[in-house]
Each structure stands twice: as structure tokens, then as C-alpha cells.
């Protein structure tokens, strides 16, 4: 048996297992180009046409900066397929800053809403449109039912949704910081990490990223940097799951 045939048989078996596991029909994925990340997903990359949650921690939950920096390189890759909607409750996403992650002004449509309910409705409308490649919504809290609706809308149209949890400045952290049941295919916890300052000036920005839920896959935690032409994000170091837990626990205690 040739290697190619064996791997295709294995792939089919994996798919069947995945479906039996309750996962959605295996579809397209966005590979990270790094086995340490891709191995956490049943399809060998971030599944597309479904819902993902990004939960920033600490002050990032208010500024929405690290969460956006994590989401941007991913949606920028998807923007090749069609325009991206970004639904905001605080109108501060800066076009030139987003373009630095590869998302040009002609691919990004901004929608400003007043509250979570409006954001969810706008996100669902955007996801129902076949021409939309991806949509990001900044939302305080995502309930299980709302998450399921979004996931169904994604599966219908093939668009990929990112819910970026964010709450107003100065507000105490809300439920977004806790583990809730979620309809999302993946759930990421993101916070800034000190850069490797080995010279004058700023080093490359870094994030501490924990994949705390991956449907049909496994969890993981890493220190990441901005990616390059070949991959959206670059893993600098892999963290032990326990280390990530500990970091999260520290944040909870602090928050």
C-alpha cells in the first residue's frame, strides 16, 4: 500500500470518526502551518464555516486590542474569498492598523451597533449572506442558543464567524471570563505577553494564547507572535496546559 493511499484512507476514517463524534460535516480548514497548532483540530487546521470564540483576558477584554490582533491575521486570510464584516459596539477599529495584518480597506465592511442583541442580529445577517467570507462581532456575552443560531448560519453559507468578547471600559469582568457551555467549534483565550526585547525599541508583539476548547480536537497553550506570508501566526513556545491554567487562575484572582 502506497503512502498516499494509506493517508487518504486514514483521512476518510478520521472524517467518519469525527462525524460519529458529533462534529459537523468536515469542511474546509485554515491551516496554521504548524503541527503543534494544526494537530489540535480534527481537520488539521482551524475549521471554516463555523463559529469561533475569542476571549481576551484582563485589560484586553476592555481594549479589544489583543483579541483583534489575534483575529485579524485569520480573517485576513479568509478575505481572499470575499469581504469581511466587523461588527463593533465601540467604533475604534483603525483601518491602517488592520491593514498591517493583511486586511485591506476594500475587504473590510464595518458595522456599528448599540448593544449585544443588535450585534448578534447583524452577525447572523452577515453570516447568512453567501458572498461574505467571514464576520467578526464584538460582543459582551454569547449565550448557548445565540451561539447555536450563529453556527447554523455559518454552516448554511460557509462563512466563518468570530465572536470577540469585549466589554465596556471600567466595567467589572462579566461572564465572558468564565467557562460557559459554548456552541463554538473553538474557544481561544488571548492576552498580551511581553515581547522579546533583546535590543533597543520594541520587539515583535507576542500573545499568550490558550485553546481551551476545540470540538473533536484537543486543548493547548502557546506563546505566539505575528505570522508571515506563509502562516497567520507563529508559535514561539508551547506552554504546558497546566501553565496556561495557572496563568488563567492568576488572572481570575487578579480580576
Amino acid at each position: 500500500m502506497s503512502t498516499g493511499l494509506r493517508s487518504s484512507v486514514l483521512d476518510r476514517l478520521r472524517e467518519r470518526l469525527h462525524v460519529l463524534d458529533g462534529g459537523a460535516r468536515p469542511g474546509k480548514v485554515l491551516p496554521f502551518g504548524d503541527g503543534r497548532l494544526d494537530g489540535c483540530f480534527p481537520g488539521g487546521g482551524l475549521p471554516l464555516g463555523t463559529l469561533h470564540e475569542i476571549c481576551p483576558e484582563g485589560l484586553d477584554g476592555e481594549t479589544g486590542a489583543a483579541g483583534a490582533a489575534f483575529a485579524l491575521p485569520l480573517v485576513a486570510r479568509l478575505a481572499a474569498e470575499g469581504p469581511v464584516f466587523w461588527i463593533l459596539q465601540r467604533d475604534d477599529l483603525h483601518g491602517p492598523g488592520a491593514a498591517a495584518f493583511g486586511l485591506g480597506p476594500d475587504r473590510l465592511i464595518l458595522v456599528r451597533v448599540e448593544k449585544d442583541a443588535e450585534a448578534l442580529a447583524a452577525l447572523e445577517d452577515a453570516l447568512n449572506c453567501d458572498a461574505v467570507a467571514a464576520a467578526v462581532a464584538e460582543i459582551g456575552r454569547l449565550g448557548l442558543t445565540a451561539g447555536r443560531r450563529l453556527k447554523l448560519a455559518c454552516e448554511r453559507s460557509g462563512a466563518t464567524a468570530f465572536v470577540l468578547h469585549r466589554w465596556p471600559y471600567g466595567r467589572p469582568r462579566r461572564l465572558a471570563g468564565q467557562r460557559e457551555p459554548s456552541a463554538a467549534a473553538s474557544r481561544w483565550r488571548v492576552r498580551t505577553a511581553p515581547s522579546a526585547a533583546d535590543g533597543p525599541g520594541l520587539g515583535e508583539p507576542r500573545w499568550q494564547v490558550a485553546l481551551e476548547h476545540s470540538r473533536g480536537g484537543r486543548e493547548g497553550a502557546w506563546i505566539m507572535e505575528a505570522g508571515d506570508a506563509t502562516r497567520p501566526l507563529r508559535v514561539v513556545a508551547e506552554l504546558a496546559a497546566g501553565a496556561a491554567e495557572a496563568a488563567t487562575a492568576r488572572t481570575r484572582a487578579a480580576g
Partner: protein
Amino acid sequence: MLLKRRRPGLARPDEPLATVEAVDGVRRLAAVDPAAASRGLRSGQKLADARAVLPALKIADADPRGDLAGLVRLAEWADRFTPAVALDPPDGLLLDIAGCQHLWGGERALVDDLLAGLARRGIPARVATAATFGAAWAVARHAEELHPLLPPGGERDRLVPLPVAALRPAAETLDAAHRLGLDTIGQLLAMPRGALARRLGGELIGRLDRALGTAEEPILFRRPATPWFDRLAFAEPIADADDLARAAADIAARLCTRLADADRGGQRFTLAFHRVDGGAARAIVTTALPSRDARRLAKLFRGKIETVDPGFGVEAVTLTADGVEPLAPAQPGLRHVVSGGADRAGLAPVIDTLANRLGTERLWRAAPQESHLPERAVRRIAPLAPDAGPWPPGRARPIRLFARPEAIEATAPVPDDPPVVFRWRGILHRVRSADGPERIGREWWREPALPSPEAEKGKEAETMRDYYRVEDEAGARYWIFREGLFAADASPPRWFLHGLFG
């Protein structure tokens, strides 16, 4: 008659009644009712003369402002017949019904419906249709026998027996005509134009030409006339939200069929629910691209119908399309190609849904704008506007930019150095490393011209910003700037936080 009905104590139905206004200190009749008119009274007559003829005349004060308000209400009611309704104060309305007759099955039926509607509202009216507003006006107000419908090309024949006053000439012109023994329009038409112009001036010639249709009549309509108008009338008034939504869907289907037949699409659709009380509630839907998709329009209208107040019932709905442009027939399997973004036309449905629910100003794309100030370097363009080009190359820009920079308390040990520590929103941040400065000057062309070079220099220092990218101990990155420069004699410079990097 309306006055009698509204104020029954004023006069019995068969008693003559007139309204009176003071003109140059003389009280004159402003309007007379049919009973008074039949006894020879007319508007403009002195009250004293009228009383001499008819001592039993009842009078009421004229209310020109109330009359005008009433006329506006009537115009609002009349736009269920056509969007193009113009006021002709004090007591007339002009309706452009070109292109609307087919909705009634002919001019006759439209006029009958109009007269019946006016009669239901207790408004005595004289209605005439003609190819020109001048002829219709003359016939409606001056014809002895009123046949509302004027056959096409029949203007001249109908105008011949009418008095010169039917042409709405100025008072002096009318007097001059009477002095010359010219009483009817027929007599005017029999005269050579040159002689007529010499004796009575060009004004009357112009009036004559407009009435005969050889010259255009400029009329200011409340809404422009459009062939893209449709109407549905109901035997019984409807008020239920489901019925209103169904009516919206039906009328959208009718208008869209006509648009499709003409290979056209509209960008702004005004749906009017005409209530039995004469008022109208409107719902407006705009589309980012010309559209004639009836199902989509119906869906967009459905979201607005809950805000429509049907009052005691809606007896007719009308739909008007504006911004009508050529729209190629849909080709199955092919997407519309729009300049700049081939795949963007597919977005039109979701853009329209969101824009009609949230408001057009809540959806945009960011585009570059010539400016040194970061907060002014971005402008908003419509989501489906053509591409506006990439961002200008330059230094790193934050992901989040505040519309207004936020003041921070910062401690910088050395002038021209970034701060070592700053406090923002009550939280202290220790700066671990920093990049900068990037000096950004205020746009001199926005500043008023300053007289002295010293003042210019001071101003420049004050309006200069030195931007730094700083990273705190948690790795969070901020875009902060110092306004102005350190100077021994000046107040210390102020620091601001303007944005956040991821």
C-alpha cells in the same frame, strides 16, 4: 359648507354664509357658500354692499392660515392618486396624473374616484383634466358646464368661450382687456399675436401658450412626478400588521414587474399607507444598488411595518420608486459585476437589510484621506463604493484608535524621551520598552493665518505631536504622544493616549 358642518350654530344649512376679511381697511367677502352665491354674492365684494343685497347673510371671519393648512391636508390625502401634487392656494390643487390613469383603468375612473373621495369628505369640488394645467384650471373654475374630461387636443375648443380671467392674468392686464372689449379667450385667439402682445403685454401671451400646451408650465410639486408609481385600493380598510405586510408585498410585486419589463431598478422605495382619515403613514426603504427584487423589498418593508400607525384603517397603499436606473436583466448563474469589487454585488441584500434596520450611517468602509493627523486620515465611504486605494505607506499604526486622544499622567525623566510610567483610566503602566518619537505636525492649512513669526513658532511647538509606541510589563502596547515641546518658560507638555496595538 365645511364651515357650516363644523360650526352648526353659525348658520342653518339653507342660510347664506360668507367669510369676511379686511382688505386695506375695508371688509370684503373672502368666500361665499352656494346659497350666498345663488343670490348674486361673490368673493371680493364689500361686506356693506353684500349686506345691502342680502341682509340675512351670515358671516364668519376668514382664516387664511387655517385654509392653507386644510389645503395641505387635502394635498396629503390627494397623493394617493399621484405622487405629484402641487398646492394652488387659496383653494386649488394641481395633480399630475400622467402615467397614473392605468391604475384605475382610465382617466374617467380616476376622476370618479377622486370626486367620490372628495364627496365622502364633504368637500365640494370642481375637477377638470386636460393636457395642460392652464386649461384644466380654466375649465375647472370658469366653465359653465363642467365636463371633467377634456378630449386630447380639445383644449382650444373648450377655452374659446371662457372669460379672459380664466387665464389667471394680472389684474391690470384683465382690466386692459376689458377696456378693449376683449371678454373671452376666443376673442384673444382671434387677434394677431403681435397686436395682442403690443396692447396687453407678453404676460397674457405666455399664459395662453401654456394653457394651449405650446409652452411648459413650471409647477412645484410636493413630490416629483414619476411613472414608477403603483397603487392598491381596498374595498374594506385594513389595519392588521399582517394585512399591511401582505399589501406591501403585493404592491412591491406589481411595481417590480413593471421595473423588470423596462430593465430598470430603483434605489429608494416609498410605501405610503393612506388612511381613511386622510392622512398617510410612510415607510421608506433604500437599497445600496438599484433593485427590483420584490421579495427582498417586501422583507425590508416588513421590518418597518410595526412602526406604521394604521389609524382607523388603511384604504389604499401606494409605492413610489426613486433613483430609477437601467438594470440589466438578471442572468442565471452570473453575478453582477460592479466596478471595483466583482463579489460585492452579492453583498447588496445584507447591506440593505442592515442599513434599513440600523441606519445607513452605521455601515461603512474605511478609506484613506489626505491628512497628517491620524484621526483625520480615515474617511468613511459607502460599503459598496468603488475601491478607494490602499492606506499610504508609513510607520506602524494602532489597531484601535480613539476618536479623541485621552489625557494620561506620564512621567518622562528626560525631555524628548518616552515616559517611564503612565497612568491611564486609573491604572498605572510601567513602560518596559518604547519606539519613537514619530513627529506629526498639525496641518498648517487648517490653521488660521498668523501675523507674526514669533506667534507662528509658538503655535507650531504647541501643535506638534511626538508619538511613541510603548509596551508595558504585561506586553500591552500603547500609542501615546506628547503635545508641544519642553521649554523652560512654558507649562509642562501634556501627554495623551491615542490608540492601542494588539
